[in-house]
């Protein structure tokens, strides 16, 4: 696959002046998707989204249309549409640009989604650190209210929708949808036991859909040009549309790249688009999907960047946060920092994550500082195995998977630390 100019939906609008309503209406067919949706029934809208093969862009990759279909038609308690704008997965920075440059895309996507599931109220849960983006979002919302795109009887359709920006306050775990809902309700951001799932009992006890920013931003395009059109933009049957790939670390051109879903290999992203390794050094490791994704070696970069291909080789696409590591950085130090992140962000509810993540951090710290022992490597793998699949939410897996992958794939680096009594870098 060459770097021919493929269709993009977002990236050309990532400029400060693009965030205003007048630009959105004039240059981006603003709110035309919503208009179309109002002419369809809610179930027809859901079918359209199903046919688009849009999958969640937050990390789980669940088909969006199917998720919307889980909401019951009737409900005695109010339904909600919640946007997950908590973007805290290390290596991920795409939702930030969507919110500060094309906020109306998100608003229109939420409106269409709310119409489809029958929600009258919605919230955008935005991470607390995105203070500036929250302000810009609020300004876009105010524009929308003033122009009758939010509030009651939107554009004379009879449909009402109230939207509120709700700021988080510094907790990665609030990216997990049930923890997010707890945080929205004014509680500690602790994940809930599932079942019940949010579609049955979510925000304030009502049926709720939680969608990622980028997922919702795709929806207006699906309504405007049709689901099949969106589907064929992607290069694998299950994955429609384009994706924003986040490239960072030791590359010459870090940043966002909008490419067809499943339309690029890791090698292409790094070398063709990213300009290759910083300072022309040798590639050592790549984290393909945010820090929760098991690491890949330089020999594994010919994989297509999509959900199933990465899963097949034992890693994951996750949030498409690609972090590149050259030989210039110690991988033991890197995984130690990653383990520290998860120990810091664990909510503390369940035993394996609360105790196990910190234990892994402590062992890795010892190894990095030259106090490792030969049995530590096996110990790390066993701790990781005792965490994986046994926790209340996926944070445990997100901590254990990477640790196990680094220990297995870079064993010689670890052994050098242990033998040498210090970090050899």
């Amino acid at each position, binding site marked *: 696959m060459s770097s021919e100019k493929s269709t993009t939906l977002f990236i050309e609008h990532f400029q400060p002046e693009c965030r205003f309503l007048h630009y959105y209406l004039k240059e981006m067919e603003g709110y035309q998707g919503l208009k179309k949706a109002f002419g369809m029934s809610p179930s027809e809208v859901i079918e359209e989204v199903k046919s688009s093969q849009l999958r969640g862009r937050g990390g789980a990759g669940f088909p969006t249309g199917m998720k919307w279909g889980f909401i019951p038609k009737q409900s005695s308690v*109010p339904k909600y549409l919640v946007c997950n704008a908590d*973007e*805290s*997965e*290390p*290596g*991920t*920075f795409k*939702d*930030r640009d969507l919110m500060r440059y094309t906020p109306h895309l998100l608003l229109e996507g939420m409106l269409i989604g709310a119409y489809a599931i029958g929600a009258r*109220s919605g919230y955008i849960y935005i*991470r*607390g*650190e*995105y*203070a*500036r983006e929250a302000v810009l979002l609020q300004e876009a919302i105010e524009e929308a209210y003033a122009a009758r795109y939010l509030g009651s009887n939107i554009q004379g359709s009879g449909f009402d929708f*109230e939207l*509120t920006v*709700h*700021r*988080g*306050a*510094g*907790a*990665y775990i609030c990216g997990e949808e049930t923890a997010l809902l707890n*945080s*929205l*309700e*004014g*509680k*500690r*951001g602790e994940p809930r036991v599932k079942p019940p799932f949010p579609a049955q009992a979510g925000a*304030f006890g009502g049926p709720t859909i939680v969608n990622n920013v980028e997922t919702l931003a795709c929806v207006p395009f699906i309504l405007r040009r049709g689901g099949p059109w969106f589907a064929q933009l992607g290069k694998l049957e299950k994955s429609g549309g384009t994706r924003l790939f*986040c*490239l*960072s*670390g*030791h590359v010459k051109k*870090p*940043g*966002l790249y909008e490419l067809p879903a499943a339309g690029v290999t890791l090698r292409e992203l790094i070398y063709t688009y990213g300009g290759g390794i910083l300072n022309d050094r040798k590639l050592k490791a790549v*984290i393909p999907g945010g*820090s929760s994704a098991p690491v890949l070696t330089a020999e594994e970069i010919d994989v297509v960047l999509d959900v199933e291909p990465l899963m097949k080789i034992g890693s994951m696409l996750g949030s498409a*946060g690609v*972090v*590149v*590591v050259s030989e210039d*950085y110690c991988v033991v*130090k*890197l995984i130690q*920092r*990653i383990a520290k*992140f998860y120990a*810091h*962000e664990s*909510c503390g509810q369940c035993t394996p994550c609360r105790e196990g993540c910190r234990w892994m951090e402590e062992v890795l710290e010892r190894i990095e500082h030259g106090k490792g022992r030969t049995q530590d490597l096996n110990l790390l793998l066993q701790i990781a195995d005792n965490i994986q699949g046994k926790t209340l939410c996926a944070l445990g897996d997100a901590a254990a998977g990477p640790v196990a992958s680094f220990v297995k794939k870079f064993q010689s680096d670890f052994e050098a630390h242990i033998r040498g009594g210090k970090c050899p870098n």
Partner: protein
Amino acid sequence: MKQDKKLLSQKFYDAMKKLEPRYPKKVALLLPALHEAQQERGWLPPEILDEIASYLEIHPAQVREVASFYTMYDLEPVGKYHFKFCTNIACALRGADALLEHCQKKWGIVCGETTSDQRFTLREEECLGACGTAPALMMNQQYYEGLDIAKLDALLESLE
């Protein structure tokens, strides 16, 4: 639990009043209330937490369990300039540790501390979502990205 004298401003209560109808339960205002109160006071002392508990009609312990869960709520006083350096993977790979060390040396404090003149508080932070322009830091709600030692020094010089 009941407080007679209000420590938070009318502006705070007006902001809360505006938000109240947007949530079906009053307790959902807790996170916004803590943000608003911290914006006003610089940090969240116990009396403020109690006042928020009173306003939301919940137990003061409930306010503390929430406030202490999230890293952005300062339950201890902070300096005029609160520096949060991201040291997570992308920033670490692009030299964040050196920037942090630079400030520690310059101000004579370590991470987690405040300078004796109360001007600077230094903290490590997790991924800020600015990986494409790493290394990045957050100072008092503002992002500073694409930093190096020179740019960092320029920023410090620009502060009063």
